C-alpha cells in the first residue's frame, strides 16, 4: 500500500495528495488547524477574495435541504490587502500548500487581483471563481457567459504570465458546460474546478417568503454529487488533457473515487467539512486505501478510468 503514488498535478502545480479544502468551506484555514495540521492535506483553497473588504449578505445565509444546504454568503471577506498581510503568511508558516481563490466584480478586477498575487511567493495556484455577478453586464454571472468567462481568464493569464498556475472554477448552471470549459482553456486556464454550487431557493413556509435574505442561494452537499459527476465526466470527455479539480458532495473516499473515475485529478471537500471538521483527512485516508485495494499503482491511473474503451 505504501507503493501507491498518491501525488497529483493540476497543470504545472504538484501536490503530494489530491485532497483539498473547497473555497469558502475552510475560511482561511486557521479554524481547521485545530483539528488537523494543514500541511497534511493536498492544499488549502482559500475563500474567494475580492479587491475590497465586503460585509457580505444579511442573514439568514443558509438553509438545510434534503442531503444538502443552500448558502448565500455574498463573498464576505477582508479584501486582498488584509488577506495578503494576515492570512497568506500564516498559511505559509504552517507549511500548507495554498491555492488562492479570487473573485471580481468586473473583468478588470480579476487582473488587478492577479497582479497583487503575482509577487507573493509560495502560492501553488490561483483558483479563479467566475461564479460571481458581473456588475458591468446586468449582474450576469461570468461563468454563465462564454465571452465574459474567457475575458476574465484572458486578463488573468496576461497578468500572471506563466508564473502561477490558473485553475478556473465553473458553474454547473449552464446549458453546455463543455462550451464554457473550452473557452476558458483556450484563454489560458491550466486546469478547471468543477463544480461550484447549483442555484437554488427555499421558501420558508412560516414567513411565506424566500428563506435566505439573498433569496436564492448555492446548493451544495451530497444532493448535488450526481450533477458534479456528470459535469466532470462531460468536461473530461471533451477536454481529456485538461486537469480537473472535482468537488460537489464528497464526504467519503468512495465519493472522491467516483469523481476521480469521472475525470478529476484532485478533490475539494466543501460542505462535508461542516458536518465533520476532519472529513478531509478521512476522505484522504479512505481514497488512498481504496485506490490501493483496486490495484492502482498511482492516483493518476485512476483519473478518468470510467471513460476507458470509449
Amino acid at each position, binding site marked *: 500500500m505504501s507503493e501507491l503514488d498518491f501525488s497529483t498535478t493540476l497543470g504545472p502545480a504538484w501536490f503530494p495528495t489530491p485532497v483539498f479544502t473547497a473555497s469558502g468551506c475552510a475560511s482561511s484555514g486557521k479554524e481547521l488547524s485545530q483539528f488537523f495540521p494543514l500541511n497534511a492535506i493536498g492544499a488549502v483553497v482559500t475563500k474567494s477574495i475580492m479587491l475590497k473588504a465586503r460585509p*457580505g449578505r444579511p*442573514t439568514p445565509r443558509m438553509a438545510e435541504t*434534503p*442531503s444538502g444546504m443552500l448558502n448565500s*454568503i455574498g463573498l464576505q471577506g477582508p479584501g486582498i490587502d488584509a488577506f495578503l498581510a494576515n492570512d497568506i503568511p500564516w498559511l505559509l508558516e504552517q507549511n500548507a500548500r495554498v491555492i488562492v481563490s479570487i473573485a471580481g466584480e468586473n473583468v478588470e478586477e480579476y487582473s488587478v487581483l492577479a497582479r497583487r498575487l503575482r509577487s507573493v511567493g509560495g502560492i501553488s495556484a490561483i483558483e479563479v471563481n467566475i461564479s460571481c455577478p458581473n456588475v458591468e453586464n446586468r449582474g450576469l454571472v461570468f461563468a454563465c457567459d462564454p465571452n465574459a468567462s474567457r475575458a476574465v481568464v484572458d486578463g488573468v493569464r496576461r497578468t500572471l504570465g506563466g508564473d502561477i498556475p490558473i485553475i478556473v472554477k465553473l458553474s454547473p448552471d449552464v446549458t453546455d458546460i463543455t462550451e464554457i470549459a473550452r473557452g476558458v482553456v483556450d484563454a489560458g486556464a491550466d486546469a478547471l474546478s468543477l463544480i461550484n454550487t447549483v442555484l437554488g431557493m427555499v421558501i420558508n413556509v412560516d414567513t411565506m417568503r424566500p428563506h435566505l435574505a439573498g433569496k436564492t442561494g448555492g446548493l451544495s452537499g451530497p444532493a448535488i454529487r450526481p450533477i458534479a459527476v456528470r459535469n466532470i465526466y462531460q468536461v473530461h470527455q471533451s477536454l481529456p488533457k485538461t486537469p480537473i479539480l472535482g468537488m460537489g458532495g464528497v464526504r467519503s473516499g468512495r465519493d472522491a473515487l467516483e469523481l476521480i473515475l469521472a475525470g478529476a485529478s484532485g478533490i475539494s471537500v466543501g460542505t462535508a*467539512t461542516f*458536518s465533520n471538521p476532519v472529513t478531509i483527512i478521512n476522505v484522504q485516508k479512505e481514497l488512498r486505501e481504496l485506490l490501493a485495494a483496486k490495484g492502482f499503482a498511482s492516483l493518476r491511473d485512476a483519473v478518468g478510468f470510467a471513460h476507458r474503451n470509449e
Partner: protein
Amino acid sequence: MSSINRHAKHITATVVGNKRIGQYHQILLSVGDIVQSTHPGNFVAISVGGENSAMILRRAFAISRISHRSDKGDGTMELIVAPHGSGSRWLCAQPEGASLDVIAPLGTAFGIPTAPAQALLVGGGYGSAPLFGLAEVLKSRGCRVDMILGASTASKIYAPIEGKRSVNSLKIYTEDGSAGISGKVTDPIPGLIQEGVVDVIYSCGPMAMLAAISRIANAAEVVHQCAVEESMACGIGVCMTCVLPVENSEGETKMLRSCIEGPVMDGANVQWELVGKVAK
C-alpha cells in the same frame, strides 16, 4: 495552529439520561475529559438523524451544566432541548445508551467578574439552560446572583429545582400569566438597575429579548453579556453563515461569526437593528 476552536474535540458521547421537563428534554451526556475545558456559555454541535440521515448539518445546543469526577475522566454535560424541527425531535427521541457524534466545547464563554459583583441573569425559554451553570460559577466566586426567567407560557419555563439553589433570587414571568408574574422578563430590569442591585447582566434567549435587554443596559450603561443564537452550518468558523453585525473599537460594523466570536457577545456592540438587514 491558531487559538480558534482551541478546546474543541470531536467525540462520541453517550446519552446517560433523557427526561422530559415541561416542553423540553433534559439530556445528560457522558463526554469524558472535555468538561475540563468547558465554561458557561459554550455550546455543542451534534450530528442528527443517524448514519443515513438526509440532515447533513450539526445542530447547536447550549451546555446547561457540567459535572466532573475528573479522576475518572467521566464528565457529563446537560443539554436542554426543545423538540422544534426534525433534528431536535430526533435528539429528544434518543434513549439512554445511544451514542451521539458531538463536537464540544465550542464558542466563547461568559466573562466572570474578577471581584464579587451583583449579577442579574435573564433567560427566555430554553435560554435559561446555560444560566444555571453560570450561576454556580458566579456563586462560587462570591457574586450575588438574581435570576429572571420568562417564556410565553408555563411549560416553556425551564427552572429545575436543583438550579434554584445556586441563585439568591428567582423570578418567573409568563406572557399568558400561567406561571409567576404576568409579563415580560424585560419589565423589571430598569427598576432593578435603578435600585443599584445590578453590576452586570447576563442573558440568553430569543434575539428580540436580547435586543430589548441591550437597549435597557445601554441606556443605563450596565455591562451586558448575551449569548446569541444564529443559524449555524458549521459551528467552527469556516462557513460564514452565522454572522452578526458587531461594532468594533474603531466604530466600524463588522459581520462577526457568532460561533467563534460568540455565542457570548457584548450586547452593547451588537448592532441589533441591522440583523437581517442589508449589510453596510
